């Protein structure tokens, strides 16, 4: 073995090939089957895609680095299930490009945050977390209230999402901008199209409390309110034992 190596280390290209081959094996065996084994991702026939407004909110969540402190992955541990709700299933992040499972909980897990608090609570909390939770370490995101939301190009965003495998229809892509506006303005004419395309249960609301402008606050609250609610398969299925 050492004699073989004694020869190998005299051959630069041989060494290069050996490194590439040896290093590729682990990833191939662990990652490739995840795309082919059916049981990896559960079925969820009722699952819907993100609305344009929720997707815009998700992009703000990414932009602000929220994932650095909040996980969206409840583990199969008893205390986590009791604290946060049913453990997360793979299918629940099927449309998450990229996934936001997170790796650190400086703040709590928010995989099942949707519907837990009112829109008003979220707006006030994002505006200054310490008004509601005096001990909080979360930054105050006041600029979300000031910044108007960019919605003109949301159709292109949906098209890119479709390119990576999310089943957006042509109609959804064509109406993305109008749907983003309508979802945050329940009294507008555009509101009806949102529920027609994304389902009756879609949360159409004055998220930031202000009808006149569409702000980044509208989008982020719309996103936070859908967390864990694209499908209710995790609540319906019998959960395997937790440790």
């Amino acid at each position, binding site marked *: 073995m050492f004699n073989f190596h004694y020869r190998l280390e005299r051959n*630069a290209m041989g060494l290069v090939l050996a490194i590439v081959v*040896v290093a590729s094996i682990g*990833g191939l065996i662990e990652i490739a089957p995840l795309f082919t084994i059916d049981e990896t991702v559960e079925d969820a026939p009722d699952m819907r895609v993100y609305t344009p407004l929720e997707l815009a909110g998700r992009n703000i969540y990414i932009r*602000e680095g929220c994932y*650095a402190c909040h996980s969206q992955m409840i583990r*199969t541990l008893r205390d986590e299930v009791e604290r946060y709700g049913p453990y997360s299933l793979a299918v629940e992040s099927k449309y998450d490009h990229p996934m936001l499972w997170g790796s*650190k909980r400086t703040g709590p897990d928010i995989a099942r945050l949707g519907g837990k608090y009112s829109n008003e609570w979220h707006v006030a909390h994002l505006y200054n977390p310490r008004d509601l939770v005096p001990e909080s370490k979360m930054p105050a995101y006041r600029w979300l209230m000031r910044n108007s939301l960019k919605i003109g*190009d949301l159709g292109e*965003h949906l098209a*890119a999402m479709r390119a990576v495998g999310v089943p957006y229809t042509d109609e959804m892509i064509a109406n993305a901008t109008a749907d983003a506006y309508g979802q945050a303005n329940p009294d507008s004419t555009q509101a009806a199209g949102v529920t027609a395309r994304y389902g009756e249960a879609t949360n159409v609301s004055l998220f930031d409390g202000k009808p006149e402008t569409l702000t980044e606050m509208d989008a982020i609250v719309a996103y936070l309110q859908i967390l864990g609610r694209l499908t209710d398969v995790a609540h319906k299925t019998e959960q395997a034992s937790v440790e």
Partner: protein
Amino acid sequence: MIQGTWIIQRGGVGMVALLTALERTYAAIILVFVICVGVAMAVAGRGDLMAAHGWIVALFGMVVMAVLLRGIDAPEPWEERFREYYDDPTKVGIILALIWGVIGMFVGVWVAALLAWPDLTFDAAWASFGRLRPVHTSGVIFGFGGNALIATSFHVLQRTTRARLPDQLSPWFVLIGYNLFCVLAATGYLMGLTQSKEYAEPEWYADLWLVIVWVVYFLIYIRTLARRREPHIYVANWYYMAFILVVAILHIVNNLAVPVSIGHAKSYSLFSGVQDAMTQWWYGHNAVAFFLTAGFLGMLYYYLPKRAGRPIYSYRMSIISFWGITFMYMWAGSHHLHYTALPHWVQTLGMVFSLVLLVPSWASAGNALLTLNGAWHKVRDDAVLRFMMLAAIFYGIATFEGSFMAIRAVNSLSHYTDWTVGHVHAGALGWVAMITFGSLYALVPWMWKRPALYSARLVELHFWLALAGTVVYVFAMWNSGITQGLMWRTYDQNGTLAYSFIDTLVAMHPYYIARTVGGLLFLAGAVVAFYNIWMTISRPAPVDEGAAADLPVEPPAPRAWAQAGE
């Protein structure tokens, strides 16, 4: 300081003068191309943040072009100069590494302070924790670590092959191009541009640019090896090559994405959900393995034996640990996803390989420490060598801790807590930064042909600041992580959870302050290092007799393979 500015100006012209006339022309063409790409990005990205990056690219190209033009008329370098090693990119890389190091560590202290005092954001989006945190991680990993790796790899490659780099232009392309990537990364985060993939945050165009830079880097390695005057490729180069090759594989696969349009900075990852999570942590864990371990082991295998004046203890241990690390690390990433929606079989594989990984890891650490046998008096007297010894010890500690935390039951407690953060910093401060500072302290007098560093006592001061800072930081995070992990799972007599989440966060406050203090100590050490190295460089150069022997050889000369090269 005036003297320093003079050195930079003279240095810039002098460095351009060492390029051949043809290389200067190629450099100008490349820079014009870069400036055009920048302007094109600014035009295509109107109304998008990409426009800002376009202008940054163009401006970056113009600054480099200005340096080039100052020396473009210099006479062709003497034939004699091509018989020497080519060290200018290494010198600039050392300075850049130190600058990025101070910036990255400063931002690290800042984000640490934000966790203790969250209102320090001052209502500015760019100054919030979520945007500054990747500036810290990329700044220290890619800015500080990456520049140090590029700088030392060019030095080690030439000395261990006894061959000059194949040309003068491509190493500059790699070094300057890489720093353009780092600038795009850091400025992007502040503006809110991120893919959210940890340690792979830069957006698609920066990723594409890094691929080009990386291919040239690989070609420099292969071309220099082809010119080598040593039959055997020294072990340090195996590690540098593994670093270059595997980082390329990881970078390309993990960053596969579809941009919204050619004028949008934003892209959507090709993978989603569980597949994306596994790909991300296959990348993330092996960024630790091949960026933060393999590359720095390359440093260790050259600078430690050189400084100690001892050959590497065991050639066979080097072989076993090299291939063990190259093979097994790539399986270990799934231990970041214990108890998640990742299939159980992948979690188990990740845990098993993480445990076995301790064998090659400790073989490396042991090999380094046993190399010091017979030189322990030097470790006592020479703080530079002591930095390297401490790095090997922390490497051993951090890899043991890593294997331990990969055990499912342990991970159920440690994951999502500060214990992970503490573990990362045991490796990053204790291992990566210590071996880097030790290597740079050894390298600077050789590169600038000085008899010694400006001050050995400042190295001593830096050593104790760095050690104290690391210990304070790691102990704070062990305490906070284990405390919080236990509080999360504590039940009261009624069988309900005893603590609310916010109770556990309140318990973290003293540790977050302690961690800020630890980071501040470490940062102070880095500033001392910067000052010491700057003073070493800016002092007038005395005639150094030893430098005359530091030349590549023309005729091939057989040498013992188990020794560090010249």
